[in-house]
């Protein structure tokens, strides 16, 4: 029988542990497919996050090095500067990259580090159990924004990707979503381009991917993806934010 669909080489055989409706498994797969297609599996090093994807190294079949929470961009910087001909990517959530890791991320982008950041935005802290994230929408209920996020109490959702676009060293930044098939196809293209920007030695690249968290949003997977498409994209519109590649 002809094999028409299989697991990318850049993924191990381990089954994903993610919740039903979570975007991580899709995004892992897309990253792995791009690594396969670019033929860079044996020269790619990943920096996994703290958060739900903390065990990403159990899934990606490439060299991986953990980083302290928030510091992936700095760890990746040290690594890439030593291994200039390798491909280094980071994989982080919104709390990781847009709260505790803001400084490291902005400065890595501003130095034009030749690294690629995969930024999964689900507007909530997932692994710690649904606390408010920097990207939580106004009015969105979380365990630490009871009654919904209030500007005076909780501040506003932070658009890190727009901030990063202001940094002279960033080359390519796009926001996509994996909440529908079209979005998934678009996301893969964006991830591929982000890796290519690194391979062409152009500068810092990042793909922000809106992703559902049915568990912490307390929604069905179906409602959750609809919420991404209908509500989240109003605050975090899908677009190429910067492309000077």
């Amino acid at each position: 029988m002809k094999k028409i669909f299989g697991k990318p080489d850049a993924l191990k055989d381990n089954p994903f542990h993610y919740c039903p409706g979570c975007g991580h498994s899709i995004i892992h797969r897309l990253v792995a497919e791009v690594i396969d297609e670019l033929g860079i599996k044996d020269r790619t090093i990943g920096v996994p996050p703290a958060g739900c994807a903390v065990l990403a190294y159990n899934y990606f079949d490439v060299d991986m090095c953990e980083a302290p929470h928030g510091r992936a961009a700095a760890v990746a910087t040290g690594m890439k500067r030593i291994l200039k001909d390798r491909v280094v990517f980071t994989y982080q959530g919104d709390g990781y990259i847009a709260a505790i890791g803001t400084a490291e991320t902005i400065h890595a982008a501003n130095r034009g580090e030749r690294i690629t950041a995969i930024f999964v935005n689900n507007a909530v802290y997932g692994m710690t159990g649904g606390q408010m994230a920097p990207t939580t929408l106004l009015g969105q209920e979380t365990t630490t924004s009871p009654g919904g996020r209030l500007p005076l109490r909780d501040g506003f959702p932070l658009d890190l990707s727009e901030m990063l676009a202001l940094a002279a060293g960033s080359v390519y930044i796009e926001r996509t979503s994996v909440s529908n098939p079209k979005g998934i196809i678009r996301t893969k293209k964006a991830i591929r381009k982000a890796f290519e920007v690194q391979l062409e030695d152009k500068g810092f690249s990042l793909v922000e991917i809106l992703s559902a968290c049915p568990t912490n949003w307390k929604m069905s997977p179906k409602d959750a993806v609809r919420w991404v498409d209908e509500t989240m994209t109003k605050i975090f519109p899908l677009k190429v934010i910067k492309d000077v590649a």
Partner: protein
Amino acid sequence: MSEKTLMRGTHVLGEAAIRAGCRAYFGYPITPQNELPEYMASAFARMDDAVFIQAESEIASINMVIGAAAAGARVMTSSSSPGISLKQEGISYLAAMELPAVIVNMMRGGPGLGNIAPAQGDYFQATRGGGHGDYRVIVFAPAYGQEIADMTRQAFDLADYYRIPVMILGDGMMGQMMEPVVFPEPIDPAKLPEKEWVVNGSKGRSSRIILSLWLDPPKEEELNWRLARKYSAITEVIPDQEMYLTDDAELVLVAYGTAARIAKGAVHRARESGMKVGLYRPKTLWPFPSKALAKLCDHVRHFMAFEMSTGQMVEDVRLAVEGRREVSFYGRPGGVVSTPEEVAAIVSSAYHGKAN
């Protein structure tokens, strides 16, 4: 440059690091150690294979160290007390991930912002791990320019050999002072033994993971015991000390770094007055050279720890002496540097049995 050169401590450290094959430095400015990153920046600018980054913070710089170490480089960062506090998170990760790195602390007055004068208030932080979790780092305490050169070479070698972060604990004065130094011959980092554990792309082998997360408690316990065994092995091998006029001494001053030099001056003065006083100078602070100190209990009746703090190393002296002899303490914290005369006067009172 194998002839004698007059150089300040921070520059000696930088040159010795480069000669030890260090090709990556990440730091953030803080007084009194800025001449070290400046030296690395200018030396690395003339080299093709070396990386210098002035990071956005101490936190970023120690994490760049993690990345470079995981990639296999001989890597260093440096700071002074408040900056070292910020690096502690990363040092804990280095310990857990068993990554080699050299961390320099040119201590200044603290706590808080403190001041920029030489002090020794970070002894506990350096020798008890410093960050979270059950770990240690090797700590060297140079007291002379030449020792900075020699210990820096040793620090890189031990870091690689044991896959452990190594700290060089100096102070503002050690960093600024110039003394004649003869450097060891440079080594070619390309000729260092290959590291079998680095993450540099999985070409021709299966993929590797460097991590510190062990969700399963027995796995984390296993890591902790493995580290503990490594620390025991290190404790057997590397404790080092200078013993100066201790053979016939009745009172022995115990001091390290800059304080040890002042103490040595005090020993000279005490000897001139006919007192049998010696100096025990730990060159490694972790592991603390306890055995050689304990042996001195056979004939020494009084140990006096002298530190530029309110008393930290004195606890290790007490642990080594185990109550067999009197242990007292004299210190000047906050960046105050005692004179040998001052310490000699304290020693004299103690020697003649007067309360000080």
